[in-house]
């Protein structure tokens, strides 16, 4: 399944940073560049953003999306909006804490 989504345009939404300080509700468009995880259920995707996301002076244009719930990112291919943890750092299993870490959602654009 992962191969199907490489190169796919996606819509990313910073939905719930929980701290109520980060710019919530902010949207970004991007393109999926790579995926990791089991072939049937990728758990991490790398997204090249059309415009960068910043936290203060720290800005990134490549963000990693990790499935937030136990069903992972499998709903993405079906056109569902999936809940994600976002981070600028990569880990093959789960989202690491970083300068930019927020909860959000992802769907194919």
């Amino acid at each position, binding site marked *: 399944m992962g191969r199907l989504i490489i190169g796919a345009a996606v819509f990313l*939404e910073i939905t719930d940073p929980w701290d*109520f300080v980060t710019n919530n509700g902010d949207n970004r468009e991007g393109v999926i560049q790579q995926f990791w995880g089991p072939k*049937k259920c990728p758990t991490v995707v790398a997204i090249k953003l059309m415009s960068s996301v910043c936290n203060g002076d720290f800005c990134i244009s490549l963000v990693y999306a990790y*499935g937030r*719930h136990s069903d992972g990112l499998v709903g993405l291919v079906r056109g*569902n909006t999936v809940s994600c943890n976002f981070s600028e750092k990569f880990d093959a299993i*789960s989202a690491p804490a970083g300068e930019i870490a927020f909860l959000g*959602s992802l769907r194919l654009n």
Partner: protein
Amino acid sequence: MGGTTWYLHGDNNSLLYEKEIKANGITEQRHYVQAAGMTFALAVVRTGPGVSSTAADRKMRPTQLEYFQQDSQGSIVAIADETGAVIERLAYDPWGKRRYANGLQDRADSLVGVNTDRGYTLHEHLDEVGVIHMNGRVYDPLIGRFMSADPFVQSPGNLQSYNRYAYVWNNPLAMTDPSGYFSLRKLFRAVVTIVVAVYAPELSAYIGWTGGVSAAGAATAGGLSASMGMSGAVASGMLGGALSGAVATGTLKGAVLGGLTGAAFAGVGDKFAGWENVVGHAAVGCASSVGSGGGCQSGALSGAAGSMFSQFGPQFDSFAANLVANSVAGGVASVVGGGKFENGAKTAAFGYLFNQAVHAARVPGLYTPSGGGVFGWLESRIAGVFSLPLMLTGDTPQTKEYDTVNRYMSNAEYSATVETGLIRGGRPGVTYATNDYYSSSAAAQSGLALPVAPELRVTLSVPTGSFSSPSRVEPAYGQPGGGTERTAVGTIPAKILDVTRLN
């Protein structure tokens, strides 16, 4: 995806054999065992690295035997191992989407087949993308549509055939599609035809003549009769005939012919009695037979025989017995006239149903289920179905209007919630909440895998249905997760029930 699979199908698209060479080097040969046209077991022979007869994982053993328990449509609902013990239970919604065995929806689309990817109507589920491989085409059970058009128009006279992405004419409980190109369950159709034919006159008469059970009643039999200047019996016969014809043939032509035949028989019953009634039935039988592509003579004899039998022949207490007797008389007369027994029986049955039965049904309570034998059983079952809506209107179950959730938040968010009456101050996007109770900020951050530590636990009353069912939270941001979380989209009004400051 890795790996290659070969499929071997037998006659009528039945599944026989699959061979899969997986990406990890294991080769699986799957033999589907059949008897009497049903696939009831799967025998797997496995070779390759790691395969051992002592492996704890059954999927790594050299042989594996599974027995399928199927429902009336052939969908696998349970799988038993070699000892007969159930190792997996499966369930589907009417359109084939997997759901939990207890009937709950799988909103997260997380269910997959563990022991086999065969499931709904014995087709192959491609769970990773949520579709079903139906051999000829791929089907999406979420929207109930095929992903490509049907190259065949099954029945040009049926408008449903022209929606070439539709699944089994949008009737998934009655039909299956073994090939991906649609076929019918003929037996089921026959049963439905009998039920509709038996009950349509009574139903239409009932809704039209008993003081208006519903607005729909006035718009059907009663309304039809008023607007077209025909008697209630004729309108009822037309409605019942059209329904029966539509179900029996699945075509518009069948519905029209059935409606005309039903109306004509009822009209004859309205106007004529005795030998005039016999002549009228003969005329209608002739016209109906010709309209169906048969001969006039056999149709006329069938209609006349049915009328004579019902008026002058022996009468039984049971409605079903009278129906069968009339049908047999009509069938025999048809054979005498050079036609088919089936066609004659059908004509006579229509004559009886939309003449005698319709008129009897004018008086509510006159026609009651016979209560005995197969017909009685069938009648009582269907009567139960018809009475269900009436039962429901009399006792509406109480629904819960509000739901309680916890949200772990910052002081700033709490202020915004108090100010606006909306969770997160009405900010756009997805809102997360939970039913979990954590006694400390660290525990909440850990269980919910939050990037920052929350300051408060706020218990909120929200409209029922605002939030999804709970999903388990995966590890993130150095936190183990493991808690459950619910999501909602849009602005959520909330009443604050409790606030706890977390340490």
